[in-house]
């Protein structure tokens, strides 16, 4: 249930940002909300990673449908980000705005790199590598900016679906339950 809620949250965030973004005077890049949501579910995966992976893949797939990217592109990237989150889970505590923003920047960069690699594999990269890198960098910066807010929303959602009081407090505090 918790993961389903996270999938819905990610879906609505992408839906709203996709509708809002044309009013923002930054047409070059868009924050990678799917990567943030996927890394969050990876970070908060309890004993098993497979359910989190399923949630991340579904998040990516819905984003693919909403944004219009080739089906599977953001989905694969989201899966990778979920794995990344799961691997740093025991080594990193993502708490506080600054740390969250820095972590989101790293997520944005890795996600950008994964997406570029996938597009290169599919033969979809544009000719100008510099332009691609610049766009990825912009996207990572925007992801870093919105990262604390997205994580906060995810934690609030987690806290609402917590099974115990301890879990709820830990989720609200940003500690891994």
């Amino acid at each position, binding site marked *: 249930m918790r993961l389903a809620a996270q999938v819905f949250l990610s879906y609505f965030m992408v*839906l*709203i940002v*996709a*509708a*809002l973004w044309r*009013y923002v005077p930054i047409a070059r890049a868009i924050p990678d909300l799917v990567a943030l949501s996927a890394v969050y579910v990876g970070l908060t995966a309890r*004993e*098993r*990673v*497979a359910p989190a*992976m*399923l949630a991340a*893949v579904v998040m*990516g*797939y*819905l984003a693919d*449908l*909403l944004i219009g990217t*080739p*089906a*599977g*592109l953001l*989905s*694969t990237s989201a*899966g*990778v980000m979920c*794995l990344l989150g799961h691997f740093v889970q025991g080594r990193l505590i993502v708490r506080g705005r600054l740390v969250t923003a820095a972590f989101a920047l790293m997520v944005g960069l890795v996600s950008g790199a994964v997406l570029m690699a*996938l597009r290169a594999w*599919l033969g979809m990269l544009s000719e100008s590598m510099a332009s691609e890198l610049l766009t990825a960098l912009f996207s990572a910066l925007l992801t870093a900016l919105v990262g604390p807010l997205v994580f906060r929303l995810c934690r609030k959602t987690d806290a609402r679906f917590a099974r115990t009081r301890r879990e709820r407090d830990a989720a609200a505090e940003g500690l891994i339950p």
Partner: protein
Amino acid sequence: MTPLRRRILDYGMAAVLLGLPVVLLQAGLKDPGRLSGFDQAVLRISSPLQAAVSWVVEGVAGVWTGYIGLVDVEEENGELRADNERLRRDLGAARRAAADSRTLERLIGLRRETDAETIGARVVSSSINPSFRVVRLRLDRGDGEVQVGMPVIDDAGLVGRIHRVFGQYSDVLLVTDPDSSIDVVVPRTGGRGWVTGLARDDVSRCKVEFLERGKPVVVGDQVVTFGLGALPAGIPVGMVSAVRAVDYQMYQEVEIEPAVRFGSLRRVLVVLSPPPPADPDGAAPAPAVPARHMGSY
């Protein structure tokens, strides 16, 4: 199931789940336009939601641009209004300069064409008292040459006569002043009379006194100076605007509209000396002001 096996199974499933979109991605490349039933269902649900979000966002954006954004528009409006005011002032000044320039051109032309000796003067104040129709002049040069009684003209006709002189300045008693008295003639009939102001504060008109009934005038007749004393002959004074002849009176009651527009008077000429006397052998005496300024005369 041992924990290790469970973990292997978990990672295995995660790997399969991760591989699924990769397969999907590659398969989708062959036919990018194909949508599965699930895809279509998701899009059918998502599209109205996206449209609703867009509608709300556009509404908020419309409110922003229509109302809150008007704060800037108000500021811009103020700037534009100030610009408009400044440009209007500039335009007014340019129009006044152009009018002055036209007046000067006409006066220069008049001066060139007239035989009388004249000097230019600028009107520095105009009459505001209806009882005393006087304007003050600042002479361009030659203070000391101007004397009381000298006629003042502009390109339209007679303005008045010098009333007072003080240094570079002079007061002119306009023809519309009740104290003014100008010897005139109606060229069409040859009838003579005296023009004086009507002493009415609502109009700038004059009346012609002592105009004989035997030489009846009609509305529209020109009235010009007769040419007694310092006043040159033939300067337009005005046009007959009303005539009243009463049986028992010796003279006609005639009102004239002055030739000069006193409200827009800016530059004038002071006639220092009348034109030289006419050649006795010549056909006709030369008027002080050329015929083109005298209407039908």
